[in-house]
């Protein structure tokens, strides 16, 4: 029983202010049917009340669709017109009031897009009278994007206020907001307020610092993202070329096979809708297997016969790459294939500080690091990795210890190719899946491996990330293509200074 009473009391408490507002609203609405002065007042009051129900009424009035019964009562918009009803007439004063009220009311509209548009409109109007309204709207607003726009608009309207204190507060707020819009606003205000120039200047400087920091963070992210793409593409090569010393020009085609496997898995899962969003993770092992099998076949069938003749291996594997490309072109066609992004990889993420990053790029960084760790673990921790290192260090002694070196060669090459295939899964998200997907990456991959130091996975990581970041840092100045050319030239000069790369192997392993 006590509970019931408490519930009733609570309901009453909630309803009371609403009821008071209800009265004010009804009173204001009834004013719409009166004379022009009364109308204008009513419109302004409705605008100030901030009740979303006023929006259809005011719109109807503005468009001349609001009807008045012969007895003076209003016909609610949307209802059928009773006989004898006439449109409510308005004059220019009322129209001005309507425009203002509608603009303000949109600030509390249930539709977020409308709220945002209204906040932007208020920002453009630069009217000091909007400030209280914005404060009210801000108190209700919960979406961060709209909040920040409203704060900006609030500062803009305070900036044109007569009150110097309000202006100072607005300048400080704009300085703290740190967006390009705020910066433009401040610069505009500087001309109008010579007295506050110094404060505005400090606020602008603060914004500039923040903006440049944000730009740097974003460039860094883009660089790391490009770097992780390079890392993925180069990791497989770091195994086949770096560890085994086999020049595999068909490496790019292994990446391409991985991308096509991703496409194939996606098409195969079309019949199983609940699995479809997970086709990408499922493609990772599939791509590894496909590329590894092809790699093992190439190693056993062809490369094995050319050990110790690197130039011939280079030419031969180039031919193999050509055949693989043409085979895929014949099977799947030359056009680009679309690999969908699962929902959890789409969209952008805004980090604190306003740095926005795209989700799929973020995932590629994560994936790149994960693959690197997996490769490291395979080489350092498994029996296969141990045998692989043994064969690389001293083939004959490894053989006398009972290691089947031929099998290890095949497995190592298959492993490197499989890693390339996994890279293809990631690249299918950011590049066109076409038969010549791999050709664009082969030179970059070799550059990464050579730059980082042949045979060193840490070097591959550092090399890839450095190249990625340098590329993205240069891009705004030089353009994407010239940045790439500059990086290539810089690399050639770098190799002058350190022919064995950043992380040169020392001791016996370096003698190869």
């Amino acid at each position, binding site marked *: 029983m006590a509970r019931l009473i408490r519930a009733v009391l609570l309901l009453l408490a909630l309803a009371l202010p609403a009821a008071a507002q209800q009265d004010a609203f009804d009173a204001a609405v009834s004013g719409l049917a009166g004379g022009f002065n009364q109308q204008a007042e009513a419109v302004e009051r409705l605008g100030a009340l901030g009740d979303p129900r006023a929006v259809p009424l005011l719109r109807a009035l503005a468009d001349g669709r609001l009807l008045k019964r012969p007895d003076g009562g209003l016909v609610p918009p949307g209802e059928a017109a009773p006989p004898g009803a006439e449109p409510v007439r308005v004059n220019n004063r009322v129209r001005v009031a309507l425009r203002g009220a509608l603009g303000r009311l949109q600030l509390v509209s249930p539709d977020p897009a409308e709220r945002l548009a209204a906040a932007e409109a208020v920002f453009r109007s630069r009217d000091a009278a909007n400030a209280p309204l914005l404060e009210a709207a801000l108190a209700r607003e919960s979406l961060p994007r709209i909040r920040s726009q409203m704060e900006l608009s609030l500062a803009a309207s305070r900036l044109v206020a007569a009150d110097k204190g309000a202006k100072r507060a607005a300048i400080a707020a704009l300085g703290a907001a740190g967006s390009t819009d705020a910066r433009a606003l401040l610069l505009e205000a500087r001309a109008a307020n010579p007295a506050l120039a110094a404060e505005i200047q400090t606020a602008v400087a603060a914004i500039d610092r923040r903006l440049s920091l944000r730009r740097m963070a974003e460039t860094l992210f883009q660089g790391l993202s490009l770097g992780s793409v390079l890392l993925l593409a180069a990791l497989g090569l770091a195994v086949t070329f770096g560890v085994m010393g086999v*020049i595999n020009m068909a490496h790019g085609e292994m990446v391409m096979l991985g991308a096509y496997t991703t496409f194939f898995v996606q098409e195969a899962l079309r019949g199983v809708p609940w699995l479809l969003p997970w086709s990408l993770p499922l493609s990772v092992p599939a791509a590894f297997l496909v590329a590894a099998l092809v790699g093992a076949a190439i190693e056993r069938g*062809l490369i094995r*016969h*050319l050990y110790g003749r*690197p*130039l*011939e*291996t*280079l*030419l*031969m594997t*180039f*031919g*193999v*790459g*050509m*055949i693989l*490309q*043409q*085979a895929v*072109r*014949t099977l799947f066609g030359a056009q680009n294939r679309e690999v969908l992004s699962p929902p959890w990889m789409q969209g952008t993420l805004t980090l604190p500080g306003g740095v926005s990053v795209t989700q799929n790029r973020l995932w590629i960084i994560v994936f790149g690091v994960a693959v690197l760790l997996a490769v490291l673990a395979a080489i350092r921790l498994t029996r296969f990795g141990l045998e692989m290192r043994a064969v690389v260090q001293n083939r004959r002694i490894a053989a006398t210890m009972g290691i089947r070196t031929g099998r290890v060669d095949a497995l190592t090459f298959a492993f490197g190719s499989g890693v390339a295939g996994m890279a293809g899964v990631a690249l299918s998200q950011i590049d066109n899946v076409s038969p010549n997907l791999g*050709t664009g990456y082969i*030179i970059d991959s*070799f*550059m990464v491996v*050579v730059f980082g130091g042949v045979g060193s996975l840490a070097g591959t990581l550092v090399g890839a990330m450095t190249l990625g970041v340098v590329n993205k840092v240069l891009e705004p100045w030089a*353009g994407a*293509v*010239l940045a*790439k*050319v500059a990086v*290539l*030239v810089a*690399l*050639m*000069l770098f*190799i*002058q200074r350190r*022919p064995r790369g950043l992380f040169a192997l020392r001791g016996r392993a370096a003698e190869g």
Partner: protein
Amino acid sequence: MSATLASPAPPRAAAARNVLRWVLIGAVLLLALLPVLNRLPLDSALHVSDFVVSVTGKWITYAVLALAIDLAWGYAGILSLGHGAFFALGGYAIGMHLMRLIGPRGVYGHPTLPDFMVFLGYRELPWYWWGFDHFPFALLMALAVPGVLAAVVGFLAFRSRITGVYFSIITQALTYALMLAFFRNDMGFGGNNGFTDFKELLGMPLNTPNARAMLFYASLASLLGAYWLCTRVTRSKLGRVLVAVRDAESRVRFLGYDTTRIKLFVFVLSAVLAGLAGALYVPQVGIINPGEFSPGNSIEAVVWVAVGGRGTLVGAVLGAFSVNALKTWLTSVAPDLWLFALGGLFVAVTLFLPRGLIGLLRRREP
């Protein structure tokens, strides 16, 4: 294995070599006859079509490129995967001259600027286009630009003892970077459309039988000249040292030879020859665009040499002709098969025919 390539011929092989020489002379004479046969009346049994003449002219320039690659790879062991870049640069130099000769006959009718520059809003000729209205200057540039580029790259690479596959990959990156650069419109080289629509060369309107014959003979003369030059180089003392550098570079260095300078000389000479080939190629095909820089082109040229037989000058020429004949035939009969065939050639020649077609001929010798 590679040591046998340059060993002096055993006595009994001398006879076979003599036969080969006569076959070669016959082949050159036959080639020289082609433009003449082209002039015979259409119904004559010996008439040769325009297509055959222009295609053969193109192959001859390819053969010059193959010689250039063979000189560096077959003799000095420098496998450049960027010779297409030198070829294309030579082509671009002559292309610039041809563009300047169009004069006011372009679509926009501008007296000095080529069409693409008018289109891109250039006011005047960029400085690097100065002088290209003179043929000798353009020809000089067609040889000098690849030569200087090769000297710079070669100096940097050989000085740091970058050899083998590392050098190959660097030269491939070089041609790749140049391709990206030439694709840009603001380089002032016509962007991805390159140069085309040429009108005349040395006062001869192109695309006439006369011009075609002249270009054909110029190419043939260049091939013979390049062959003679390469023979002189490879049979000289320098040639012996080159082969030694290929087979055991550090040993040669320890013997007191300056291998860096020797390799640099051969590499630059090879690049100049490639530039010459490009300069002859462009007027005959009537177009040059950044696609010529693509790494695939360079490596395809390497395979001509591999197929023919590297380390023998005849082999390089033979390879250029035979692979391109196969390409022309296959791309017309079954275009999809060509890339399979080319890829297969790469595999087959490295696995089964390391000495190329010439090796196949020589195997019959005792």
